[in-house]
C-alpha cells in the first residue's frame, strides 16, 4: 500500500507528460483565441462607408440574411490571398459580405478594390481600430459568420484559402440552416 503511494508521483508525472505530448503533436494553434462574441448579438456601432458618403448602422443592417463580416487591409498580405475566395463566396453562393477596412489608407483601399474586384456589399472604414476592438479582432484577416437574427455564430482567424474553403462553406451552410 505504501509502495503505491510512493509510486503515484511517478505515474502522475508520466500522465502529465503524456498530456503535454498529446497537445504538442495534435494540429492546433495555441496562440489562436476563441471569440467571446460567439452566440452574441453583433456589436452596435456606426461607421462610415468607404465607397459611398453614407453611415452604416449596426445591428439593423444584419437582420434578414446570413452575412459574413470580413476585416481586411491593403497592408495585409494574407488578405490578398484570401480575396479570390471571398469573391467566390459572393459570386457563387450569393453571400452578403460586409468588409471592414481596418487601419488602412482609404485611397489605397479604393484602388485595391478597383484592381481586384469588390466582393463586399458594404465596405466600412475603421481608421483607429475601434470597430476591430469591439469585435475582438487581434490579427488580420478575420471573418465572422452572422446569422439572419444578427447573432455571431463563428469566427475564423486567418485567411480563407484553398485549404479551408470547403470547411468554411460547410460552416456557412450550418449557420444558414
Amino acid at each position, binding site marked *: 500500500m*505504501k509502495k503505491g*503511494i*510512493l509510486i*503515484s*508521483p511517478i505515474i502522475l508525472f508520466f500522465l502529465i507528460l503524456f498530456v503535454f505530448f498529446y497537445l504538442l503533436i495534435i494540429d492546433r494553434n495555441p*496562440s489562436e*483565441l*476563441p471569440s*467571446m*462574441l460567439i452566440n452574441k448579438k453583433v456589436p452596435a456601432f456606426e461607421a462610415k462607408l468607404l465607397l459611398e458618403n453614407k453611415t452604416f448602422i449596426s445591428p439593423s443592417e444584419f437582420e434578414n440574411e446570413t452575412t459574413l463580416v470580413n476585416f481586411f487591409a491593403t497592408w495585409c498580405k494574407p488578405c490578398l490571398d484570401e480575396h479570390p475566395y471571398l469573391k467566390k463566396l459572393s459570386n457563387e453562393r450569393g453571400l452578403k459580405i460586409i468588409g471592414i477596412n481596418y*487601419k488602412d489608407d482609404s485611397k489605397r483601399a479604393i484602388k485595391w478594390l478597383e484592381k481586384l474586384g469588390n466582393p463586399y456589399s458594404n465596405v466600412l472604414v475603421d481608421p*483607429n*481600430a*475601434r470597430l*476591430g*476592438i*469591439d*469585435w*475582438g479582432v*487581434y*490579427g488580420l484577416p478575420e471573418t465572422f459568420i452572422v446569422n439572419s437574427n444578427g447573432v455571431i455564430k463563428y469566427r475564423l482567424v486567418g485567411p480563407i484559402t484553398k485549404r479551408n474553403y470547403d470547411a468554411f462553406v460547410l460552416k456557412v451552410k450550418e449557420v444558414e440552416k
Partner: protein
Amino acid sequence: MQRILLAIVVCFMTSQIVTINCYSVDPDEFLQNPKKELRARNISKNVRCLVCQNQSIDESSAPLAKDLRILIRKKIKQGNSDEEIYNFLTERYGDFILLNPLFKISTLFLWILPFVFLAIGIFVIFLHNNKSKKLNYSK
C-alpha cells in the same frame, strides 16, 4: 581591488534594472494628469498583448497594443473605473487578456493544484521519514 569589483557589479546590476524597465509607451500617449497616467500604466501592465502573447500591452510595440493603451486612457478620461475597463476588455477578448488569471470555478484547479501537490509532497516525505526512523530503531 575588491571595492572596485563591487562597484562594477553594482553598476552592472543597476544598468540591468534600467534596461528591464524600458517601455513601449510613446510620450504622445501620456495623460496630463499624473495620477490618471499611473492608473493607465497599472492597467496596461496587467493586460496581455494578443499579438505577442506573453507581453503586456505596456511592453509591447504591436499596433494593437498601442490602440488598446490609447483606448484605456480614453476610458479613464471619460471617468470609467478600473473594473469597468477590465470588463470592457474581457467582454471582447476573454479572460485571456488579463495576465493575472481570475479566481473562478473554471480556474479553480489552476490556483489550488500547486497546494495539493505541496501537500502530497509533504505527505510523501513524512511517510518516508517515518519509515527510515523505524528502520533505525530496529537496528
